[in-house]
């Protein structure tokens, strides 16, 4: 079985994320890192490999992004992927969800995976949708927010929470699965794995290499358009107490509650 893990490079959560008012796109300067939600996808792939219920031949990390996205691939390899595929082309810049999903599906077609794993969301875009877009292009069944996945020959039994509680769903492979962050605790990469990551095979491909129709991607191929960016409605900020002396803190909370007749 071949597993492809979709991974993305995102701004480090520790730094302020913001939108560039000029380009109306996310400001991509500053520290960048592997989308933390994607580490759960790689870990899920590793647990399938180590679980032994099915033989995993290969785990491939796949990303679409600028040159710097290579670092997200290195980190993915350090976490367990065997090699990586970088879809990189200036023509892709400014792609919306529709265009990104199409482009990633084209790249995945060249790999013919049995299972595609994604994170539940990208930490910057937070669209929650790429998995289902990719699946329809690949003509594969899919499910998002999966927190339990039992693999056997040719199929998966997945559990996920939807509007009315937990659903258990059986899915035939090949399939596209977005995993929730409760599915596992991603491991820390060993120093050896980090050092060795840059030596693992990394293919860089452009739109022409994977058969992407250039008119369907990038800003020109996108179907949505950001028309404006506005600040949120002003909100009266709440009162903040720093806990230094806990007895005093508790007194303050109690007084606050009493004032509002809550106790």
């Amino acid at each position, binding site marked *: 079985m071949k597993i492809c893990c979709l991974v993305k490079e995102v701004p480090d959560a520790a730094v302020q994320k913001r939108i560039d008012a000029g380009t109306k796109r996310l400001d991509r300067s500053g520290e960048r890192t592997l989308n933390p939600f994607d580490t759960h996808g790689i870990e899920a792939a590793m647990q399938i490999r180590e679980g032994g219920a099915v033989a995993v031949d290969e785990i491939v990390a796949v990303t679409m992004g600028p040159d710097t996205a290579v670092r997200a691939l290195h980190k993915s390899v350090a976490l367990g992927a065997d090699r990586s595929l970088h879809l990189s082309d200036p023509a892709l810049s400014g792609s919306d969800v529709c265009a990104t999903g199409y482009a990633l599906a084209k790249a995945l077609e060249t790999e013919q995976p049995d299972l595609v794993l994604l994170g539940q969301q990208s930490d910057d875009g937070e669209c929650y949708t790429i998995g289902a877009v990719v699946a329809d292009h690949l003509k594969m069944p899919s499910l998002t927010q999966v927190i339990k996945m039992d693999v056997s020959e040719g199929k998966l039994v997945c559990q996920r929470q939807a509007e009315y509680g937990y659903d258990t769903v059986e899915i035939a492979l090949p399939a596209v699965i977005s995993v929730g962050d409760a599915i596992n605790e991603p491991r820390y990469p060993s120093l050896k794995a980090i050092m060795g990551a840059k030596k693992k095979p990394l293919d860089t491909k452009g739109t022409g290499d994977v058969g992407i129709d250039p008119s369907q991607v990038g800003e020109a191929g996108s179907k949505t358009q950001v028309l404006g960016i506005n600040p*949120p409605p002003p909100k009266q900020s709440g009162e903040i107490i720093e806990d230094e002396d806990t007895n005093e803190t508790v007194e303050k909370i*109690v007084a606050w509650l009493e004032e509002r007749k809550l106790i």
Partner: protein
Amino acid sequence: MAGILVYALHDDAGVFNNNSLGAISEAAKLAGEIGGEAAAVVVGEVDDAACAALGGYGASTVYRAKSVPEGLAQPIVDVMAKVITDHGFSYALFGGGLLGFEIGAGLTARLGAGVTMEVTKVKAEDGKLIAERPVLQDSAIVDVGYVSEPGIIIGRLNAFDVKPSGGGDAAVEDIEVELSAWSTKARMVTRGESGDEGGVNIEDADFLVGGGRGLGDKDNFAVARELASALGGEVAATRAVVDAGWIPYSTQIGQTGKTVAPKLYLALGISGAIQHKVGMQNSENIVAINKDQNAPIFEFCDLGVVGDLHKIAPKLTEAIKAKKG
């Protein structure tokens, strides 16, 4: 026709989801503004009267695909893609909910359509719709327009109010849809299990103590329980701790849980992720205890306490008990 098509989600008893009803109300209003009508798609064996009653929220037609199962997205993508193509709808609108995200995304791929998610407001301008979407932890709101039709709009939970339109019954039209090969490769084994039949109804409680991952482990939920009982209320939870099995699903607040608006919501060790916020932001008073001063919950609480809940909460419980005598 500049119509708007809404997906009406229902549970296994055929009761429509409030977020779907809100989306129908919103679609009816917007359709009036851009000149067109609002229609709904229903899958499964929902009876004529229940479907027709969607007219009361503003749907003029209900397209029903009886043989298509409810609960998994891809077969519903097949149904909606056919209705949109056959009747020329300009937009598809979804109320907040996980299935709406999946169906909307599938339609995006199938129809080459633009999609906006987590939408909190939709505006009509020059016969077109513009979606407002908060981004980056609600620190900015972007206005998104569509360069082609159809446009897909996925609402945030509770973004659209349910408003009876005063209209009569909707016309119910049964449709036959051939499912795509890949849409039939997933099968629902069991749907909507809570693991807690007959749990407490947190929606009716005036006082709720919400527990999050910051409680540390399952046993520590006692800290939240004791505080809740001192306040005369109930405990609630985040998805993180429900997924971890610390507490049953019936206590979960948020996007795929319940929506509450108690007099007091006291959050212990909860970061305040959007998906949690949408289920409790209308509480009258929000108090948060969190050791991370940058936690998003401090952006929308009324009283924020930066500190270790394990030090503060037990003493708070004692102090409240003492006050109450």
